[in-house]
């Protein structure tokens, strides 16, 4: 085998092992979802129809529940959006919404039953009474034919737009009794996608254009990228996003810009060795680079080799937590283990803000500390980066270990789950 073939084989292995782990998580998640049972309960319905006494499945095309009173008279109708709309994805996954109709077939109320999105975003949507009650009074037929929500006075919730938009699309798709209509919201290219595409192109230009005049304007591009990607769009690549995509699906049609960003983050380093996302796009990387540039050198802390070696395990251990969370559906908000959601600070949780602040403080004294010793997402991009040598590295063994661990955990999921849940 020539060195070039060895290098190619190593890269195929690395991409393959990541895809294999993703496939294991996906098939396991689907298995749990199919076997799981989340029927609408009478208690849930009673928040809108206190007289509800019984729920009967409707075998008609609407596929919901007839709500009956104590005299067995129909007083309403309830539907849940899942599993029919599991392909409609918010920020990182689908949303299960209950819609309750009155006797006249118009909406009495809606409630979020479950969401794969960031809990703080979901809470923002739930607390937006204007949004939650915007559906009330509208008949089934009207909602099922909505194409433009603004015309019906339904607007997404600021700061949780992707989650609320997913809810809007899920409700309309669920109410369209044609099953084919419930497969997504169709291809939509929005200004956010254009902005992301421009950022990717500018980042690629910074990586590949060696012209001196262009290099002079790179600081301006970095500031623009930091502001637009971090604070305006908030579409930073993160573990919570990838796990949501793996468990549900990749939202090619709904958020093509974010998908392009993720593709660029994986493929550009894999093909060219240039760490496009980490080096030229990631706002947290830019923030650390500025700290490194402007904090005087005398404040810098030099780590000894043992500490460096040990700390480099942290991103891999965080990936282990991500894997365990995905496989055992642990109540861990994955957004909280990374700093990226903190850039949308209004909707960010305390954990992600704490990680962002602490990582920046540490990075002020240890250059690029978070990128080197804390970032699980960066580790994934680095892992698939085209290798400069064709030797089997420690990270290849660790990745294989993750694959084996994922396989074993899935095989013994039941007993391990029982052991975890055993009350001491």
């Amino acid at each position, binding site marked *: 085998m020539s060195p070039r073939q060895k290098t190619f084989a190593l890269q195929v292995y690395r991409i393959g092992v990541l895809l294999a782990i993703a496939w294991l998580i996906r098939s396991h998640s689907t298995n749990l979802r199919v076997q*799981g*049972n*989340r*029927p609408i*309960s*009478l*208690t849930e319905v009673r928040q809108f129809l206190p007289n509800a*006494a*019984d*729920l009967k499945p409707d075998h008609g095309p609407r596929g919901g529940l007839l709500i009956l009173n104590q005299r067995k008279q129909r007083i309403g109708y309830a539907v849940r959006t899942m599993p029919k709309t599991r392909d409609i994805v918010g920020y990182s996954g689908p949303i299960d919404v209950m819609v309750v109709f009155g006797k006249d077939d118009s909406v009495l109320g809606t409630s979020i039953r479950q969401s794969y999105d960031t809990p703080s975003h979901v809470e923002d949507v739930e607390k937006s009474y204007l949004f939650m009650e915007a559906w009330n009074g509208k008949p089934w037929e009207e909602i099922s034919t909505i194409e433009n929500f603004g015309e019906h006075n339904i607007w997404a919730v600021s700061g949780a737009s992707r989650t609320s938009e997913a809810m809007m699309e899920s409700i309309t798709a669920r109410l369209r009794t044609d099953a084919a209509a419930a497969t997504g919201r169709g291809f939509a290219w929005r200004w956010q996608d254009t902005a992301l595409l421009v950022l990717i192109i500018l980042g690629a230009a910074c990586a590949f254009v060696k012209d001196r005049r262009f290099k002079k304007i790179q600081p301006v591009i970095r500031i623009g990228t930091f502001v637009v990607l971090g604070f305006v769009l908030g579409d930073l690549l993160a573990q919570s996003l990838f796990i949501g995509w793996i468990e549900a699906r990749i939202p090619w049609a709904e958020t093509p810009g974010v998908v392009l960003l993720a593709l660029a983050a994986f493929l550009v380093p894999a093909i060219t060795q240039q760490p496009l996302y980490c080096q030229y796009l990631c706002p947290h990387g830019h923030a650390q680079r500025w700290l490194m540039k402007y904090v005087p050198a005398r404040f810098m802390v030099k780590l000894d080799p*043992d*500490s460096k*070696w*040990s*700390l480099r*395990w*942290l991103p891999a*251990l*965080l990936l282990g*937590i991500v894997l*365990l*969370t995905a496989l*055992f559906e*642990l*109540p*861990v908000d994955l957004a909280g*283990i990374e700093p990226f959601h903190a850039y949308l600070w209004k909707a960010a949780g305390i954990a992600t803000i704490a990680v962002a602040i602490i990582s920046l403080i540490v990075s002020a004294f240890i250059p690029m500390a978070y990128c080197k010793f804390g970032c699980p997402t960066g580790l994934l991009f680095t892992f698939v980066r085209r290798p400069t040598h064709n030797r089997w590295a420690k990270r290849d063994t660790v990745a294989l270990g993750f694959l084996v661990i994922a396989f074993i955990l899935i095989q013994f999921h039941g007993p391990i789950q029982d052991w*975890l*849940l*055993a*009350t*001491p």
Partner: protein
Amino acid sequence: MIRRIIIVGAICVFLISLVLLPAVREMQRDEAVKALLLTVQRAMQDYHVEFENYPTTSGLSGSDLIALLIENGHLEEPPYNPWTRRTWVIPDEPTDYLVYETDGLAESYALITYRSAARKKVHHTLDSSENQSLE
């Protein structure tokens, strides 16, 4: 090498205690709350068989309800308290986030558990008028 192992071990302990352990504890608590609800539910059915209605006082605390069920022989012993991780203290359990509610005729009931003593966030509701799943 020993120093490296110690540092990596410390990182593992830190991550487990900060992230994994609280998550597992939350799962265990959730499971234990469901088990408590199911235990009380079974006792309530026995109560109903004997008295042909459920306890008539709405708004009973978990302690009061459990004491009543024990007194009438429908619960053999105090159940496990998921919030203290000890056996329920009768008659006055200080950590009690369970509430019993019934209708005017005591023909149906709901067992409601809260996340905290403030009783703002409902954790689980078990309603007798439906075959409700706690899964």
